[in-house]
């Protein structure tokens, strides 16, 4: 038999049935469609982005046009409401639906980008501090302590006196004041992860610190990171309102959900819809982001693949 002469390394048959890895985009789409919540999340997020982009075309009314004869009209399905103003009107008689539609733009922009900025800063600081430890950790963490202790409004006031207000400024300010949460959460996890064997293994290869942080530590903290950042979008959207209020960001007649919510505060007891619908918009958007985030978290965790398949049951 010719079996003896078989080369050691060849396995002709084995490769035959191999699936070639498909195009990444296709693969991700496939993965997304496998997850129900992931799909819903994507639909919501795409929907919100669509609304933001085409707000002016979609909005049934001019969001800034006040109509003093239509003040505080309730939503259509409540007695006294009309489908002309489906979600009712506010204290200046403006159409709440249109304001929500147009407000999407600012809220989404600020909500997402300031979280990204804060997240990036926090991620870098947290990983560096946790990984290197020692004096660097001490200095960075005391910096975090200081940021926690000094009220951010002080920084904001100073920013205000130096810079021209704009959305970019708003994003930067929120980013610069909110990174501490990420930094501390990330650092806490890094402390634990850096003691794992595989980090040691990588060190023994001579891997640079940077690579260890990027390839070994970072992927193992994404999960907590995704969770906090997705939720923070909600807080940031609301925070935007209070900072705009200080004169940092947008001004009427521009609208944002946060501002609508804050304005509606005074009418909670009497005209609930003013504050409720922008709140609902925030909740839906953030839910979408969270669903997407959870899905991403699962996909990134090689061991959690079950949830996306029928497999585990």
């Amino acid at each position, binding site marked *: 038999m010719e079996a003896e002469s078989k080369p050691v390394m060849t396995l002709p048959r084995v490769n035959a049935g191999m699936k070639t890895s498909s195009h990444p985009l296709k693969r991700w789409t496939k993965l997304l469609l496998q997850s129900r919540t992931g799909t819903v999340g994507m639909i919501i997020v795409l929907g919100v982005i669509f609304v933001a982009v085409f707000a002016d075309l979609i909005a049934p009314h001019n969001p800034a046009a006040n109509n003093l004869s239509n003040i505080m009209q309730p939503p259509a399905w409540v007695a006294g409401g009309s489908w002309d103003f489906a979600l009712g009107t506010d204290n200046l008689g403006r159409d709440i639906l249109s304001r929500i539609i147009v407000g999407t733009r600012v809220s989404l922009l600020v909500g997402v980008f300031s979280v990204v900025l804060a997240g990036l800063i926090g991620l870098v600081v947290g990983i560096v501090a946790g990984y290197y430890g020692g004096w660097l950790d001490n200095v960075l963490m005391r910096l975090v302590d200081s940021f926690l202790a000094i009220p951010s409004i002080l920084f904001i006031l*100073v920013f205000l006196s130096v810079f021209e207000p704009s959305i970019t400024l708003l994003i930067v300010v929120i980013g610069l004041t909110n990174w501490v949460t990420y930094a*501390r959460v990330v*650092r*806490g996890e890094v402390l634990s992860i850096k003691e794992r064997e595989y980090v040691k293994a990588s060190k023994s290869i001579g891997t640079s610190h940077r690579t260890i942080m990027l390839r070994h530590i970072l992927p193992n903290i994404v999960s907590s990171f995704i969770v906090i950042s997705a939720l923070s979008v909600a807080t940031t959207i609301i925070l935007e309102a209070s900072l705009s209020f200080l004169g940092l960001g947008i001004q009427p007649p521009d609208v944002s959900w946060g501002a609508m919510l804050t304005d509606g505060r005074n009418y909670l007891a009497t005209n609930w819809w003013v504050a409720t619908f922008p709140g609902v918009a925030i*909740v839906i958007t953030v839910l979408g982001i969270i669903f997407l985030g959870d899905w991403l978290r699962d996909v990134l965790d090689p061991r959690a693949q079950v949830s996306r398949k029928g497999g585990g049951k």
Partner: protein
Amino acid sequence: MRKYLIRRLLQIIPVLFIITFVVFVLVYKAGDPVALMLPEDASESDRAAMREALGLNEPFLVQYFSFVGDLVKGDFGTSFRSNQEALPLVLERLPATLELAAASMIVAIILAIPLGIYSARKQNTLTDLFITGGSVLGKAMPNFWLGIILILLFAVNVQMFPVSGRGSLMHLVLPAITLGTGIAAEMTRLIRSSMLEIFNQDYIRTAKSKGVSNSVLVYKHAFRNSLIPVVTIMGLQISHLVSGALITETVFAWPGVGQLLIQAVNGRDMAVVQAAVFVIALLVIIVNLLTDLAYRLLDPRIHYS
């Protein structure tokens, strides 16, 4: 370990010093306190006179060093607005703040731990979805919103709790729920995500092979391992609660440090801002130190040197 502790405690001094300096610069840069003390139609000369009288005309460094000089003696100076010593003003508020912070933390923990664990165990079921929705709601509902609604529902319509103010335990319930839910939202999500990660570990399988009940599996073996991010958030939130429960304090007319601090900032009331930040910083540093110590307890592999 002892060395570590001592070093951490010693660090407090320079940190507080730096914080004081930064705050001084910020308040100084943030604007003129006198403008905010006098009514709208006070004239410029009135304001100038008051600035002069309060020593606010001195150059920055002179002001700063005189402040530090007093600070070393433990004197934060006197509030511009109320003409009272700043530190007692802050310390007077501290119990109310700590009381509220503790109560909110308890609410958060009571809500977050079972919900987070439950939603991790029921991952991707309808229940999980509801809990996720709930956390988003908890996070997206601003404190004023929830606070006012709670007052309307449980103090005005059904008169179960007092509307506002501080006093009995009953007074604590609504504000603590208001603050606690937001924190719980975040914690729930974090617990869920780290639990999901832990459920895949080999030692969970080991525990299962011993035949432990589900609750032991979850609450003992998995939960403890998932606590690091949760403890971090708790530490952070305590810090926030000490300084930033402003909105809730306002809604419930709760006389805490948050209200004081924000009024002081809005009034550029240097002494009070300094005293409040100082006290808050001290608390934050201690809480964070405790957090770091808790890490060690939670994960014996972590070591500090």
